[in-house]
């Protein structure tokens, strides 16, 4: 086991997690396309394992921390300084592990002992980051604004932040009233509505367990976004996107509410403004508003010819 730091590398290491390889594949596609447009390198963490999400933490705390510890220690070997976790559950699992290891000596002892036995390194020094905050801080509004090639002609969108990316840790944004996604979208010329439910929970896996309760939570979000005049909801988490998108038809039927909103990833909207192609951004994978989404997008954008 070596404690020497490997040579520092530029760009970002990226931890996709299970959702971005399956139901959330459009998030992965649009994130990669956006970073390509911004000319920032993004490399996937090799042989990553599941973050454990909320389920692992409910069964065995030590094992849950070890799952994240393995990812963090694999990440440390690569020489990257930042580990990007686009999924809110992954982000929190990694972040919480670092926090508990630092804050609770009993957890630290257990984790470092196990890591050593498995031939892995310590998990210090690697920074866990969410793409929202990376785009806001490292790329910056100005650099995004300069690269816009499509002008948005549609109506405003509702920015939905959800729960675990902005809570309980406050590095992604202010936990009570996050605004950075709104600022990013407005920087590329997309107006946003004042969405009061932007941090209200979508229920996570409840749609799969206590179905009616899960649907109800998502119904409230859809209804409020529509009431505020939003033309679509923009998310930063694959589970929020999945719940609002895949169950929208059922919500429409059971609540007798004519909501029909495309549910997008913020990376898709930013990538679109920066000239990304429809398919490259995974926009063809949307379910709600899906068949019409291409026309919907085309009608809302005016391609500018200047360079």
């Amino acid at each position, binding site marked *: 086991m070596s404690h020497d730091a490997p040579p520092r590398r530029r760009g970002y290491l990226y931890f996709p997690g299970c959702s971005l390889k*399956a139901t959330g594949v459009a998030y992965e596609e649009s994130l990669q396309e956006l970073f390509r447009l911004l000319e920032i390198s993004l490399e996937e963490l090799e042989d990553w394992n599941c973050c454990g999400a909320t389920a692992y933490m409910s069964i065995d*705390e030590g094992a849950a921390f070890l799952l994240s510890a393995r990812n963090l220690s694999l990440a440390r070997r690569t020489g990257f300084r930042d580990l990007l976790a686009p999924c809110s559950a992954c982000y929190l699992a990694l972040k919480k592990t670092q926090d508990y290891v630092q804050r609770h000596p009993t957890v630290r002892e257990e984790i470092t002992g196990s890591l050593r036995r498995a031939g892995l390194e310590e998990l210090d020094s690697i920074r866990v980051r969410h793409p929202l905050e990376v785009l806001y801080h490292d790329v910056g509004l100005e650099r995004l604004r300069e690269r816009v090639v499509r002008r948005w002609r549609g109506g405003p969108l509702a920015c939905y932040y959800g729960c675990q990316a902005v809570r309980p840790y406050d590095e992604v944004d202010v936990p009570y009233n996050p605004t950075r996604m709104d600022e990013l979208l407005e920087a590329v010329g997309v107006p946003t509505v004042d969405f009061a439910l932007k941090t209200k929970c979508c229920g996570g896996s409840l749609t799969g367990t206590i179905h009616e309760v899960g649907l109800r939570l998502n119904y409230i979000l859809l209804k409020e976004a529509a009431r505020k005049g939003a033309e679509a909801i923009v998310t930063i988490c694959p589970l929020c996107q999945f719940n609002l998108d895949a169950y929208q038809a059922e919500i429409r039927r059971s609540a007798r509410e004519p909501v029909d909103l495309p549910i997008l990833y913020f990376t898709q909207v930013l990538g679109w403004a920066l000239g990304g192609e429809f398919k490259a951004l995974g926009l063809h994978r949307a379910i709600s508003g899906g068949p019409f989404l291409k026309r919907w997008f085309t009608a809302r954008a005016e391609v500018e010819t200047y360079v």
Partner: protein
Amino acid sequence: MLELIRRKMKFQREADPNWAVELGKRPGCERIFACIQCGTCSGTCPLSIYMDFTPRKIIALVREGFRNDALSSQTIWLCASCYSCAVHCPQNVRITEVMYVLKREAIKHHLYPKRFPIPVLAQEFYEMVRRRGRNSEFWLVLRMALKTSPLSLLRLARPGWELIRTGRLSLRRERVRRGFELERELASTREVI
């Protein structure tokens, strides 16, 4: 899913104050005795209206030592870990973490409500990741539906078809390549199951 109304009065002889004191030493539970019962947690919780005890009541039960009531409640499983209570609590009680500690205690002592799908999902997820290192969404949902209510598969037909149509349903059974080191790590802490 709501259960029968329970007796509301608690008797002190049913409580185990020592359990509360022990619990208060666990990481995340340090502040339970600082709770002022203001109810901000219950007010901000998106799921409190579906709970048998609101989060405020759970904290009250826990610190008096009403172990069985707290551990067999649906509340701890309905908690979706959105951390709204934790960031709004004026006394910095980490309520979400307390819920996690209670979930683990309930699993350990088999006190979770039977046939309630949430702990079943958690355990299926745990088993899958422990064995393969990764979670495969499709297989997880299938296993859980078969274990709790096979009829719910009918309901999943339409969203399932939509996911296939948009290329979002992966049938691959994911796994990590270097599984052995993960297995070894986990083996050294497996104390609960």
